[in-house]
């Protein structure tokens, strides 16, 4: 029954039900390995988090603003972003101009072939 529900892609197959079974087995193995852990480990015994030598901030004071989250990525692609973001100028007539521009390019391509 489950094998009849396999999605064929021409190059591969995908069966979510089998995937779920495999996932369940993997979780089971994980839990099994976890059970080897020391049972006498209690909460509070763990070391404090190391934050570059700074004191751990109080609970509730440690929000990381979303715009800082991918700073590394956006900084690495700065050249790209500096070109693309200004294109989103927000001016209504620019938007119209872009559409007409694409249309003009398509006219040239279609009428030339």
């Amino acid at each position, binding site marked *: 029954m489950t094998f009849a529900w396999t999605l064929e892609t021409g190059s*591969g197959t995908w069966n*979510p039900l089998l995937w779920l079974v495999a996932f369940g087995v993997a979780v089971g193995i994980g839990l099994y390995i976890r059970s080897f852990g020391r049972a006498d480990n209690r909460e509070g015994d763990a070391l404090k988090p190391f934050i570059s030598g700074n004191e751990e901030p109080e609970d509730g004071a440690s929000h990381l603003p979303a715009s800082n989250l991918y700073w590394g990525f956006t900084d690495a692609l700065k050249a790209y972003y500096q070109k693309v973001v200004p294109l989103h100028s927000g001016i209504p007539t620019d938007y119209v101009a872009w559409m007409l521009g694409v249309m003009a390019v398509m006219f040239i391509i279609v009428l030339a072939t």
Partner: protein
Amino acid sequence: MFSFCIRHLPALLIAAPLFTAFVVPLAGRLGSRVRAAWVALGAFATAGIGFALAAKVLGSGPVTYVFGALDHAQTLGAAAAFPIRIMFEVDAFSALMILISSLSSLAITIYSLAAESRQSGLDIFYAMLFLLVAGVLGMVATGDLFNFFVFLEISSLAGAALVAYRIDEGVAVEAGLKYALLSTIGALSVLIAIGILFAQYNALNLAAVASRLQFGTLDKIALVLLAVPLAMKAGAVPMHFWTPDSYAAAPSSVTAFLVVSSQASLYALFRILYTLYGHLLQFSWVTFGWFLIILGVLSAFVGVTMALTQKDVKRLMAYHSVSQTGYMLLGAGVALAVLGNAEALAAFGKTALAGALFHMFNNALYKGLLFLTAGAVFYRTGTRNLDRLGGLGHTMPWTMAFFMIGALAIAGIPPFNGFASKLLIYESVYRLSPFLSILAMVVSILTLASFVKVFHAMFLGPPRAEYAEAREVPRPMLAGMAILAAFVVLIGLLPRPFNDHMIAPAVEALLDRVGYIATILGGS
């Protein structure tokens, strides 16, 4: 009575939302409860008719419906005395789109009953919402070019009015203006193209025009005038600029349906390329296949990279819908590029197209779900700024769960529905060019990254003092999200039956140009 209803399903499909829309202000006079009951009734009726029609089409083949005549033979064909009548032709592809719109409209109406209840001006709001639904349903059901233009304009007008509805210090109106400006200029271009086709072939019926089409210079001009504005309405880069603006400014329930409205434009684009022009594109079909592929790749990449840096949660999601549209354009473009090569088409073209259509359905579900969760967060916190949100997982667990389902689905994580359709696209597109597949996967990874950011910013972290009052949203809003989430999970777990019974017939219908014409004109 029952068989009468079945016979007139295509007409009822448009009549039900229109009737609901125009009676809402009257119902509103009788009180807000009457209005809510009427709106709910209208939503259920519209969705029920949509499901019934789709089931009929998928069960027993294409349905045609002629307004003002008993059957289409009196309007077109040898015995036709009067060649111009509005005609609906609902084949498997239209049925798929009708299913998407019905499901989505039902979920968002239930959601908005609670989400909008604190606002004023609800009579016109619901009237506009149902006009939008009617416009979208009309766009995907009609078999007539001019009628398509009318529904396109209905959906654009209602959409723009809804985007601008909550004025919001003028910002929403600015977004509405941009949406209306681009939609109008696009629709005028479509109208001129329809005029060019009518002048040559003396017909407005899609099948009739397709059967007479010669592909001369004027037809090429008409093709560009049709394809580019529809790609713009679907939100393809570099014509996507209006998408983030208007999606962010509209009320969340409306945004969820604007996604469907964009996909109706995508439907029309595919319909025109595959059914109206189809094999006539001759040497140009490669060009147009690559036109879609390039637009698709650009949309996918630019959309996701722009999304990564956004701070406004709805603007971020709007850029993602640009990016997801890229996948659909990519899949359909690959199929169009190999349309002339029967071997390649059978080997991977059909799979690519199936992936694209499957992705359209999935996208409407999870994208709608994500916009609804963003609306739920906005409902309780009053902000869309990710820098100021946080810690809501403690107080809004259901919203968080629904958001997770949507986010995992859009990022293509198994076993949710986004994975199934993306897999179909990856594993077929690489046969044309491996680069396209790799790029599509990179885009998926970036999608996951940016939703990790949103998840972290909205739900994780210790509770914030300013949102201490926040609690779970009212039940109807949860119900609206639950409908969409349930389908996301269900289709994710059972992609094969869904693919076989809905997507595959839609692919066949879209590729079978002769069959579409023969349904109306007879013979082949």
